[in-house]
């Protein structure tokens, strides 16, 4: 059913050479551009990814990222890599990125994807800046077919995303799209974007299911809210968000499938 998820890697696209004046030394500074570049770059074209790319708590491609050298996103370090293209997120360390631009290095900025419909745009843009349009087109076609076969009708289960500090996500977010594609009704669909939802408002809205963040190692008061007695008293079924939820890459399909299984 879902060819993308079953495929071992994107290896089959990697053989083709880059076209014409495509960049040859590409450095990525952002978790999401890391992943898109790893999926699309020709062998040897991508010379460094950010440190987060190999962090299994943040990156959907932590294992693959081990094959690339890592950078810590410091301007000096990046400059010494002598890149001919730097990939950054729209909000990635602005001071660093503008310094690289002053030093004459071309920078491409990517907006974070705020919905499933933006995933093909991001893949296409990455294909374009890397000179890998054919690989991008193939990946988009497969993503769209897989999404179509995976998508459920929205049912009656009302779920809420509730993360550290009571942070929740409403309409117009990737997380909301993932929930809907998994057949869940987003309890916070009436609010755009993300924000803090006081615990008592969550209780009064009476969700049927909670989607929480996986706790990080080392304790924090921010995450304590997820084990507040009031949530335990409500005894709701729970699912977790994870690295697959963060970026506009085809890995969001894995997030949808996992959530469908958790909600079953």
């Amino acid at each position, binding site marked *: 059913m879902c060819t993308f998820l079953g495929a071992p890697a994107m290896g089959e696209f990697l053989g083709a050479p880059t076209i014409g004046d495509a960049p040859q030394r590409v450095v990525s500074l952002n978790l999401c551009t890391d992943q898109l570049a790893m999926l699309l770059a020709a062998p040897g074209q991508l010379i460094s990814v950010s440190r987060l790319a190999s962090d299994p708590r943040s990156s959907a491609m932590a294992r693959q990222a081990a094959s690339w050298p890592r950078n810590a996103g410091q301007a000096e370090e990046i400059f010494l890599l002598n890149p001919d293209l730097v990939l950054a997120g729209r909000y990635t360390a602005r001071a660093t990125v503008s310094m690289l631009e002053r030093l004459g290095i071309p920078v491409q900025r990517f907006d974070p994807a705020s919905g499933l419909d933006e995933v093909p745009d991001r893949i296409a843009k990455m294909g374009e800046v890397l000179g890998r349009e054919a690989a991008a087109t193939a990946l988009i076609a497969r993503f769209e077919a897989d999404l179509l076969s995976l998508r459920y009708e929205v049912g009656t289960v009302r779920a809420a995303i509730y993360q*550290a*500090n*009571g942070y929740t996500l409403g309409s117009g977010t990737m997380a909301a799209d993932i929930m809907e594609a998994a057949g869940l009704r987003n309890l916070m669909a009436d609010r755009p974007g993300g*924000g*803090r*939802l*006081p*615990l*008592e*408002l969550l*209780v*009064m809205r*009476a969700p049927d299911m909670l989607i929480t963040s996986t706790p*990080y*190692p*080392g*304790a*924090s*008061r*921010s*995450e*304590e*809210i997820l084990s*507040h*007695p*009031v949530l335990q*008293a*409500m005894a709701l079924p729970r699912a977790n968000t994870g690295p697959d939820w963060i970026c506009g890459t085809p890995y969001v399909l894995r997030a949808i499938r996992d959530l469908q299984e958790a909600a079953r």
Partner: protein
Amino acid sequence: MIRVFAGLGALVLLLFAASLLIGPAGLPVSDSIDALFRGEGEAITLVMREIRLPRALLAVMVGASLGLSGAALQGYLRNPLAEPGLIGVSGSAALGAVLAIQSGLAAAFALALPLAALGGAVGAVVLILLLAGPRGSALTLILAGIAISALAGACTSLVLNLSPNPFAASEIVFWLLGSLADRSMQHVGLVAPFMAAGTIALLSLGRGLDALTLGEDAAAALGIDLARLRLMLILGVAATVGAATAVAGSIGFVGLVAPHVLRRAVGAKPSRVLPASALGGAAMVLAADIAVRLIAPERDLKLGVLIALVGAPFFLRLILTQRREM
């Protein structure tokens, strides 16, 4: 005198009720009361009993602890600037609490949190007494206090910065400024015994502190055991401030403002200022915690911010009046 105490008691009760009835959910008053006492309506009952009740209870407990500790420290040091936040007791308690949480001790054994905070507070009180002494000048006290607070604050920030948890670093603000958001009955149960024991210890000091206003020799002649008084003070302040800080972070100025405001109303005798400051502190923290929820319910404004907004100008005024009296 009795009128003042009755008035303060009524104020605390009124604010306690307001704290229970005010919240982002905007529940109808009659439904809220029904839910609290009779448990009708499942979601409302959970909100009232598991979210608002512990918050209101903790505001009273934390405020009373801080007010009482401030009054006791001012009485013992005979220095109007003594305050758990200013002299570094709260900061050191926060360091103890942070160490317990980050080392995983607090998760392994719940009592480790208040005990570690208490340990931090004992350390600070002992240091202050050694450095400033009962006859130390205001200057020594404040200098020692600044040094201890700065050191404790820096260590707390360092521990949180080094934590593998990305949220921990953002919680430096909580440990330095305090908040009662999303606390539960577990927290109330955890700190109540420490606060009760500390409060009893501090209230029992009234007679001794009254005698001490005449000077140490006179107090000793009146049969006051000064060594015991000192020990009870250290343990009482550490237990109350340690427990308060362990669950609510460091909240400054309550221990400074409450005794000063009430000394006018009840007279300068420490035995009267102590209970009055406990009630005054409770009222202050309740009021600040209500204000936090009214101003920006979704922002988790820190309690210390609001209290400092009121407390700092008061502190400045105190300095001016003191200068005039000199």
